[in-house]
């Protein structure tokens, strides 16, 4: 188990380091952010920019809302067996002024979630096969660094 390779469940959407970041992009002309990255051409209708730079998004935000799913979703989700409820949070990033979804790290008790709560990006297992552990971004509580 311990020797499985950690691979991203999707290529190029987030970094894999100790302080992971979501990877969005930003229009070079108007500065609008996009997540997931868009291939070409700014989507701000008031901008004709065509050059976008990949940028890491803020790794902290505040919860806009949250929910806990008590049923296993259908494929292509790969549900753990036995199935365990998991939470999903919509998180507001203040600098980018956008709301992004992510599963909530299982270490957080869903009963402690609340709108406005500060959370931080982490990586967690989405599913595993015999050789590899597929990881995805998740939201975790903000460590008290007092």
């Amino acid at each position, binding site marked *: 188990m311990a020797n499985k390779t950690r691979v991203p469940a999707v290529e190029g959407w987030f970094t894999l380091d100790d302080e992971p970041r979501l990877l969005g992009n930003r229009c070079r002309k108007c500065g609008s952010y996009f997540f997931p990255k868009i291939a070409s051409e700014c989507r701000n209708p008031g901008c004709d920019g065509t050059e976008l730079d990949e940028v890491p998004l803020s790794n902290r935000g505040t919860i806009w*809302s949250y929910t806990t799913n008590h049923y296993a979703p259908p494929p292509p989700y790969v549900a753990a067996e036995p199935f365990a409820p998991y939470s999903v949070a919509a998180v507001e990033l203040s600098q980018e002024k956008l709301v992004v979804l992510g599963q909530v790290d299982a270490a957080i008790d869903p009963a402690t979630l609340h709108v406005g709560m500060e959370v931080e990006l982490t990586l967690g297992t989405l599913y595993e096969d015999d050789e590899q552990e597929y990881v995805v971004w998740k939201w975790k509580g903000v460590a008290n660094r007092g």
Partner: protein
Amino acid sequence: MGDHDVAVLGVGMHPWGKWGRNFVEYGLVAARAALQDAGLEWRDVEFVSGADTIRNGYPGFVAGATFAQALGWQGAPVASSYAACASGATALNAARAQILAGLCDVALVVGADTTPKGFLAPTAGERGDDPDWLRFRLLGATNPTYFGLYARRRMELFGATPADFAKVKVKNAAHGLTNPNARYRKAVTEDEIMASPIVSDPLRLLDICATSDGAAAVVLASLDYARRHSLTNPIRVAAVSTVTPSYPNTVIEMPNFATDSAAVAPAPAATFRDSIAQQAYAEAGLGPDDLDLAEVYDLSTALELDWYENIGLCGPGEAEKLVNDGATTIGGRIPVNPSGGLACFGEAVPAQALAQVCEVTWQLRGEAGERQVQDATAGLTINQGLFGHGSSVILVR
């Protein structure tokens, strides 16, 4: 009478259920019923507008032609529209445009679906560039996940409670009790709802609509044609709103991973859902106070409350009071979902927006039986299709 009005000559439905038969069968039943209601022959139809289903193979993608062939080729041009849950409104608007452009006098609009059991899942295959596939794969973000997010936000922002949500279901179940086209015709109590299993917290099984088979059809005609056929006072379509969002769309929506960014362009004055209704009101020259009833898309109980605010029945955070006061119950100030809504029907995607139009038409004609809203003269339907599709129709008499 607006410049853009067209007449509703006939409406018809195939009852909602889990019948497991081919969607074309249901569509035929609904189309025949609408034609009979209009007092027209199939050969009188000059344009066929189909609302597509994406879960029934090629015939579903060319629904206009599929229904035209099933009714017997008679040469009428066809169109087929897909706009997720808004497909019916988009198909209706395509037919209306043909009539208003003077290209035809009579159009038939049909939507029908056969649905699989359980959660609506994305179409099969490995599709790493399809956000609808990826949201299931990477987040396990089912449709109820999004409904759960909206419901929880109402609770935290406005102090809504699961009992408030349950009241919506109790109301809709009571409305649909005697609706012959409804799939679920059974009264339910708040306790039963709040004892049903949690699906996407805070929403429980009975807060969330099922998926169903069903079909609905509408026959539209120009006002001139209606007059020539001695229909002096037909129900009229006064507005169809199929707007898309305005950038930046700052509310998280199915099937997206994120909202647009408001870092550069400021958020528009109206949210997307608000703008759907605003466009319809503007076209009809009416406002929320002019409505006698509304059919709103209650994918979840809590979402019905959001719609009250989106269509201007009350201000933000006031919807719970509306349902608790009985204002949205038949007999109240502004009955919502007198048909029983999705709570009693379950969702048959391409048929649902047309089913809303059928119900409002029956209500305005005074033909809604035990669920009749007294003296109704104007009604609004509203719904939203994934990937940015607005859907609202205002009907008047």
